[in-house]
């Protein structure tokens, strides 16, 4: 069974800038794959190559077994796209935009009407069907664009930052729609800046930095790789001078955050024991003590060089 997406040594240059540097990965059928990276890392460029909008300088992209290089029309028939920049036709109505997409994907006119009607209803756009898109709010536009990507019931869908700039409820609606589609077997490839989104939605994530794919795994496993260094948050019933913490066994760094101390430790167990010993020795009591699991944010910042 072919993978939903397989990317083989894909490279894209813009003049002297290598926007995407020989990356390879694959996305299995039924997966939600998150593509993360800081601004300008090459997410959109990669997505455009996967969707056949840009031609890679080298390498090949296969969509459900069809090569984007040698059989682009067959490959493109298989997926729907929500591009980074919103782009329904502003001079057409929601209805006309959807019907036009139906025609481009080769749906018969009855089938296209049926799908258009259905999508307008589930995306809460039915009352606005006959209005031109230029009068739509950003949330309405984004819902319409998602609906346009789904017109032909694709088994794979690409989304480039589908929730950026949306309010919480619109973003939630789109995310729950994606989850629901995935439960029916649709493969989803999405780029995002939102770690929360990636963490709760994606089965696997890939992280790209300056055109290089630097990590690819499930969010949990990625967090695990950071587990060697633990974060501990502690507060005492009274203020203590820094010196007390300096030479404590097991603790590597510390800094004050309000009434709390944030510590990092190689050995969590040893660090906690020495904190307890310290408070006993000094006659203080510990008010709170938390060990913090690394978040996907930490992984991201560590890997993309935002934090040393």
């Amino acid at each position: 069974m072919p993978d939903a997406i397989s990317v083989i040594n894909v490279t894209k240059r813009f003049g002297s800038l290598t926007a995407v540097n020989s990356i390879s990965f694959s996305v299995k059928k039924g997966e939600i794959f998150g593509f993360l990276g800081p601004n300008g890392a090459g997410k959109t460029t990669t997505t455009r190559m996967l969707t056949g909008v840009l031609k890679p300088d080298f390498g090949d992209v296969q969509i459900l077994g069809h090569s984007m290089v040698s059989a682009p029309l067959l490959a493109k028939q298989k997926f729907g796209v929500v591009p980074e920049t919103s782009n329904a036709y502003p001079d057409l109505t929601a209805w006309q935009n959807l019907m036009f997409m139906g025609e481009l994907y080769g749906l018969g006119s009855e089938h296209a009407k049926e799908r258009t009607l259905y999508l307008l209803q589930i995306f809460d756009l039915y009352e606005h069907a006959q209005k031109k898109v230029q009068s739509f709010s950003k949330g309405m536009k984004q819902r319409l664009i998602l609906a346009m990507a789904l017109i032909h019931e694709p088994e794979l869908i690409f989304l480039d930052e589908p929730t950026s700039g949306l309010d919480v409820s619109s973003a939630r609606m789109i995310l729950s729609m994606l989850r629901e589609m995935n439960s029916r077997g649709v493969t989803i490839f999405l780029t995002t800046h939102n770690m929360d989104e990636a963490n709760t939605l994606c089965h696997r994530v890939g992280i790209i930095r300056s055109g290089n794919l630097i990590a690819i795994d499930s969010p949990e496993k990625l967090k695990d790789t950071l587990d060697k260094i633990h974060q501990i948050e502690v507060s005492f019933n009274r203020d203590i001078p820094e010196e007390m913490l300096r030479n404590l066994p097991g603790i590597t760094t510390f800094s004050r955050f309000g009434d709390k101390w944030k510590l990092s430790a190689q050995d969590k167990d040893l660090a906690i024991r020495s904190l307890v010993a310290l408070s006993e020795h000094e006659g203080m009591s510990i008010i709170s003590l938390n060990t913090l699991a690394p978040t996907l944010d930490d992984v991201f910042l560590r890997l993309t060089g935002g934090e040393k």
Partner: protein
Amino acid sequence: MNIRMVREQTRRAFSIAKKDLRIYYYKPPVLISGILMPIFLCMAFLMGNKSVSLPFLIAGLLSMTLFFTATAISPVIFPWEGQTRTLERLISCPVAPESIIMGDMIASTIFGIAITLVALFIGHLIGVIVIHWILLICAIIIGSICFSAIGMLLSVPPTAVSQNIMLLSTLVKFPLIFVSGIFMPVEQMPGAGQVIAYLSPLTYFTDIARFSLTGTGYFPIYFDVWMLLLFTIILSVASIVLHKKTMPLRI
């Protein structure tokens, strides 16, 4: 590509043409260069020119109308799609670049044919006599394809600023009008003008229109038709090849 795919792609090209017609026919640049411009030129032409016969004049007007209407939509589509960022979506759909380009050409061609036929019909009502109807209608169809290809070629430079393309269009379109035997019969042109007239497809369409209305033309009619067809093929192929090259630069 097998036959079934070609048929399917042709259907999709027509869907793109339908979308173009819906969106672009009332855009200001299209209205100005496709409707207002030919009307004003015709009026200036009718008032100024007393030395030539009426059928000659009507043939020139017809030719000018077709030229302006068929080149009205095609130059603005690509810059506009680039500007509204709708092109990316179009390219990610299962439509070949050729289908997109042909769809745009079809839209422009239909616009040209429709408005010219209306003008012809009005002319007919006020007493213009056409001798060779079938020839004229065929020439209008071929000529419209040819001129819309010229319009497409004008929008090959990958800019999203449609004003630049409009300026370029004006700079190309007006000189063509002057060298194509519309204001002045080819036989009365100075030598250099006659040479340039041979290089303009508009010359041959004008001559066919003249032949259809008056029964005589400057060139043999078969020569006119073949030249018009030849230009249509060359210009259409050129606009497809060149647009395919510049399309990715608009993303």
